[in-house]
């Protein structure tokens, strides 16, 4: 073997950099709100900018984002444990119901769509406590059921809305860009980057990162499970571009198996999540 040692100058400089990063982190507050994590299949659309997100972001002109008009005032209810909510009769022009579930305690929640969300202790005070979603208005459908652990407390606010769709725009390279909507995703999908910038990720890169493209290649459940195990706990960062699809403005992180998987029993009840205890899994602030 040739002398396989790290170059000392390189090593010293790297070491100094690492030590300084660790020391600096101690004086920083956690910056959770600036990172957008996606759980595996959990509200994948939530971190992508849709109608309401785009409005909140001041991007009213985001192409493809539906124009959403609230009809009437929001209704709020607070619950403990699983509940079926009577949403009331939809106004005639309503096309959808927008809901905001805010967790008041830790727990996991399962929605009729099959989606789930989880609140851990450190999520409770911030924006992470609120999960926003939308269900279409359907004739005769006036309730929705949300499952959770018996002791979990939560608040649900909902509003009937009118939804008017808009079209995606096209950049100089002929790529469509804009918000994810009923037509699916454009070639450049609007997101918020980890640095807080708004921009677009390439759909192809997003599908690779979320595993959407890979998932279509599985022939057996074993393949899917092995793949899932391999990705457990890993994160994938992809570039966020300006609408030109060239200028990089930040990065978007897709995270798999974020801590634990929510499981339900045969009756659709959420089982207690298997949270890592503080002694086996050091958890400290800062990212």
């Amino acid at each position, binding site marked *: *073997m*040739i002398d*396989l*040692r*790290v*170059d000392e*100058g*390189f*090593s010293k*400089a*790297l*070491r100094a*950099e*690492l*030590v*300084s*990063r*660790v*020391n600096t*982190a*101690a*004086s920083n507050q956690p910056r959770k709100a600036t990172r957008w994590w996606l759980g595996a299949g959990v509200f994948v659309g939530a971190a992508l900018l849709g109608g309401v997100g785009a409005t909140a972001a001041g991007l009213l002109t985001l192409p493809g984002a539906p124009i959403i008009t609230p009809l009437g005032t929001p209704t709020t209810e607070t619950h403990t444990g699983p509940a079926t909510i009577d949403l009331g009769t939809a106004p005639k022009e309503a096309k959808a119901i927008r809901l905001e579930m805010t967790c008041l305690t830790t727990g996991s929640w399962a929605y009729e769509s099959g989606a789930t969300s989880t609140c851990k202790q450190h999520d409770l005070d911030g924006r992470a406590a609120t999960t926003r979603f939308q269900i279409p208005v359907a004739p005769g459908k006036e309730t929705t059921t949300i499952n959770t652990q018996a002791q979990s407390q939560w608040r649900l606010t909902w509003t009937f809305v009118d939804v008017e769709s808009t079209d995606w725009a096209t950049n100089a390279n002929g790529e469509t860009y804009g918000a994810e909507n009923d037509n699916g995703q454009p070639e450049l999908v609007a997101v918020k980057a980890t640095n807080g910038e708004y921009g677009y990720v390439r759909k192809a890169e997003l599908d690779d990162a979320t595993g959407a493209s890979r998932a279509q290649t599985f022939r057996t459940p074993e393949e899917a499970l*092995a793949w899932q*195990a*391999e990705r*457990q*706990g*890993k*994160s994938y*960062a992809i570039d966020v571009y300006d609408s030109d699809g060239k200028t990089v403005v930040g*990065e978007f992180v897709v995270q798999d198996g974020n801590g634990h998987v929510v499981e339900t029993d045969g009756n659709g009840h959420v089982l207690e999540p298997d949270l890592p205890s503080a002694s086996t899994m*050091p*958890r*400290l602030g800062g*990212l």
Partner: protein
Amino acid sequence: MGNLESHDAGLWTRSLTGDGAAFGVLFDRHRDRVFRHAYRLCGNRHTSEDILATAFLELWKKRRKVKLVEHSILPWLLVTTTNVARNTNRATVRYRKMLDALPRQEEAQVDSGEATYLQAVLDQDVVDALKTLSPIDLHLISLVVFEGYPVNAAAELLNLSPAAAKSRMHRARSKIKEVLQPKPAPPSQFVMEGNGS
């Protein structure tokens, strides 16, 4: 494993509270093995340095997800090193600016001499053989064959059952052997070796 030397838990916990000196000791402790593993996977010194740096930067960045195996961060580091080495360009882009700012030895000084060249050719064969493995199999081979971890410890880190890990190990070893089979030698060598019956 299990000796005092490989016991990282205390230093790791101190690092997590922002103790840079403790993290520095962890770096000193595992630097060479991470570097050698990176070299094994890419066969290039400069790239190995990038991988080494990226692995440790990732260790800090993803510290909330790091899993200790037998009180050591090394298995996690080796798995990350493997992942980074498999896709060096993508993995290092996040730290590019920083990596470029670190001082390097001159390339010429590193890659001079015939011995180095021959070694590089040999290394490349192994690098190519390892590239034929799936990511999980590569992790397993790295941890068990190169670094001497028990199959069960590697299985735990990779979320595999011990039985699945064993059968994967077996298949991966056969595959590497197959790829590393000596290619048919030129006729002259056959003459020299003879069969001497």
